[in-house]
């Protein structure tokens, strides 16, 4: 379906002068304030989403540099390029960066950017909250790297096991930095999740009933629900740890000598930690579904089954955490129960793979870079899934626990399952960011080199693990025989660096000088492709009325659109949860500097908590005034956010009223 149909339709019913007048009004209504204050106070979900993705890629680069340093250190036996203390800081910061500062935020960022567009609305439900989430994430990330630069980076692993991270062994403020970074970034994740859930449930374009929601949107909603259940566990755990460590609080939650329980830390951490893997992976499956559908040029095979697999994975993801604790003294019966769920989680994932293969099998391929990355994803992720089944087995896991086999497994799952689809998604959606296409030849070179480099780094780690090389050692003796495989892995890391450099150079070059993209260069089916590239701040001149699951492919010249929204206020149509029937007009708040102020107070409160418990009550008082300012000045001209449709109904054409549902 041509993406110009919507504008044709509009031009049939409205004069060009009126369209231009409306566009000017929308531009003015939805634009940010000028200057640095405007930049800091934006509520445009596209700007916030892009900042989140960009910042996450910056952290990805820093985390990658740390990985490169580790590979340099391990390339030779007995190497002293890095000392043990620096190595501990580096592997802890690498893991924490990739999990907390890259993988989760980048998926959220993509959701913040594309979910509203895909469901045919102009904004997230809580735009000010959205920018608050970004700043708390940024401050959390800066805190972690600030520590590393001052040689006081956390050094107890990304999971900060007690007692190593407790007051007895965790020296200085290292673990406290990690702990507060966790709190800040998880606040950000919770904010993004709340926003995405409410937006998808209440702001979908009319006609987008539950059975028509794009799979990427489903993936973001399901992930958001997971975040809401998973993140509080780690926030509570890190807060309890902070209280254990704070000398003038000195609780003993994890201190066995005083009746605490160190195993409780592992339960709390892994109750978050394993779902975290799916929090990263499920949005990537949404990206895979979108890319495969577009580049197979056919409707997705097994839509219902794909939604089921995401829901099932999300649930089961919460029932496998004990497999990280198989070598702790837990009852074997309990461990066997978790073996069952850890093995059965491959069922929904397997169904997913077959649905995608069927879509590819039945489609007509358009073999561009995004699809090539997805083919790489299949190769890598399936391998990671298979070693996951191996590790779900209690006896095998007992042998392989804390060896490089586990390192190989989770990198196959996380890089294969998330980074390959993410790169594919960046190549796919890049035109929407800047109006230009990424270079295709450089993209293919990036993909092939990244795949080869990845296999060189991580395949040998399976063998290293099987022959006994433990994780988290800064060096090893020549007699162990691990040197050759480690050297091979380090060469692979260099290849991955080259591949990633090609990507960054391509991105910078294409941003300014790349081939100009049409609105829908790939012939895709979702609503964001009906918009010009780059997308105006108001996004849709008229919110569309959705005709089918593949919205653009099923749009016709006489498809209805939503009219009747005030163009001088930031308004969108709110619809019912199940069938997306128009319900009321929803006015959203405009830009404000207060989210930035609140995030600064929040950051100061958490950083202060590393030194004194008084920072909490003082911070809360300051936050009270921050929120007072937030809600005091409302740029929606003090209108109530709820406006019943009866005042000015949402019609396609006021002269020819029919309910939107009937029009569909």
């Amino acid at each position: 379906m041509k993406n110009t149909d919507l504008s044709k339709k509009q031009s049939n019913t409205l004069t060009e002068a009126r369209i231009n007048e409306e566009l000017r009004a929308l531009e003015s209504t939805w634009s940010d304030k000028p200057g640095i204050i405007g930049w800091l106070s934006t509520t445009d979900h596209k700007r916030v989403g892009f900042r989140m993705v960009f910042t996450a890629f910056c952290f990805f680069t820093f985390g990658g540099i740390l990985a490169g340093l580790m590979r340099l250190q391990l390339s030779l036996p007995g190497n002293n390029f890095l000392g043990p203390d620096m190595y501990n800081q580096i592997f802890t910061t690498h893991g924490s960066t990739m999990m907390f500062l890259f993988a989760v935020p980048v998926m959220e960022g993509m959701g913040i950017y594309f979910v509203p567009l895909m469901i045919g609305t102009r904004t997230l439900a809580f735009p000010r909250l959205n920018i608050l989430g970004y700043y708390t994430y940024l401050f959390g990330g800066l805190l972690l790297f600030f520590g590393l630069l001052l040689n006081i980076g956390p050094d107890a692993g990304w999971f900060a096991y007690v007692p190593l991270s407790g007051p007895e062994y965790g020296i200085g403020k290292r673990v406290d930095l990690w702990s507060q970074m966790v709190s800040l970034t998880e606040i950000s994740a919770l904010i993004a999740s709340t926003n995405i859930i409410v937006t998808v449930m209440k702001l979908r374009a009319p006609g987008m009933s539950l059975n028509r929601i794009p799979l990427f949107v489903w993936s973001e909603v399901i992930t958001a629900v997971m975040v809401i259940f998973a993140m509080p566990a780690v926030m509570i755990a890190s807060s309890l740890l902070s209280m254990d460590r704070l000398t003038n609080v000195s609780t003993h939650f994890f201190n066995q000598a005083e009746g605490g329980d160190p195993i409780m830390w592992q339960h709390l951490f892994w109750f978050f930690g394993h779902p975290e893997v799916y929090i990263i992976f499920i949005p990537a499956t949404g990206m895979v579904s979108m890319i495969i559908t577009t580049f197979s040029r056919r409707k997705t095979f097994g839509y219902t089954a794909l939604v089921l697999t995401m829901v099932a994975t999300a649930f089961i993801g919460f029932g496998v955490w004990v497999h990280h604790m198989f070598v702790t003294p837990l009852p074997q019966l309990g461990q066997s129960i978790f073996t069952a769920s850890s093995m059965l989680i491959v069922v929904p994932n397997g169904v997913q793979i077959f649905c995608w293969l069927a879509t590819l099998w039945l489609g007509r391929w358009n073999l561009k870079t995004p699809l090539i990355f997805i083919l790489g994803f299949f190769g890598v992720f399936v391998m990671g899934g298979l070693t996951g089944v191996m590790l779900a087995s209690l006896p095998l896991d007992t042998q392989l626990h804390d060896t490089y086999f586990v390192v190989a497994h989770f990198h196959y799952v996380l890089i294969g399952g998330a980074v390959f689809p993410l790169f594919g998604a960046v190549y796919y959606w890049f035109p929407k960011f800047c109006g230009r296409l990424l270079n295709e030849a450089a993209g293919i070179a990036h993909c092939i080199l990244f795949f080869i480099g990845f296999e060189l780094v991580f395949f040998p780690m399976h063998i290293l693990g099987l022959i006994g090389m433990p994780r988290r050692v800064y060096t090893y003796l020549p007699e162990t025989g691990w040197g050759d495989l480690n050297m091979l892995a380090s060469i692979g890391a260099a290849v991955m660096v080259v591949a990633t450099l090609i990507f960054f150079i391509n991105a910078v070059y294409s941003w300014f000088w790349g081939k100009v993209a049409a609105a829908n260069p790939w012939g895709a089916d979702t609503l964001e492709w009906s918009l010009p590239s780059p997308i105006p701040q108001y996004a849709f001149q008229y919110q569309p009325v959705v005709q089918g699951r593949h919205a653009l492919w099923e749009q016709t010249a006489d498809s209805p659109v939503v009219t009747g929204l005030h163009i001088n206020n930031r308004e969108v149509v709110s619809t019912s949860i199940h069938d997306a029937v128009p319900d009321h007009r929803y006015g959203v708040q405009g830009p404000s500097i207060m989210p930035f102020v609140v995030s600064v107070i929040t950051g100061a409160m958490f950083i202060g908590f590393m030194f004194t418990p008084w920072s909490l009550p003082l911070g809360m008082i300051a936050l009270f005034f921050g929120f007072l300012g937030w809600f005091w000045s409302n740029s929606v001209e003090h209108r109530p956010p709820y406006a019943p449709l009866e005042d000015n109904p949402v019609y396609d054409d006021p002269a020819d009223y029919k309910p939107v549902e009937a029009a569909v």
Partner: protein
Amino acid sequence: MSDERRDLELEKPESELLLWAGFLLPPLAWSISLETLYLFSDYGCTYESFLPNHIVSVAFLVLSLIGLAVAWSNWQKSGATWPDDSSGSIPRSRFMSALGLLTGALFSILIFAQWLPTLLGVPCGK
């Protein structure tokens, strides 16, 4: 039943509640059974008494199957055909009930699989 009557029937709040029940009851039953089984595993291994585990497994398996039955009933009410992407409460109900059927089957198997270690009789072989 005509489509119009079925449409009206499926738009009632109680029908929507049943759709969510059919969809969510099996995974919720599994989640609670997992936590409860884990809670009892220490007791079972200490006192070599696994009756609580059997009771929990059976009870939540039944609950999950009830969810499956509700989804089946919803699916029948919405026309008993595989969901497509047309609009309205009937296709949407088919979609949600089909999801319920699939989750019901999967999570019932999962509850049974987690009962197996106790059923096979070697649960504390340290």
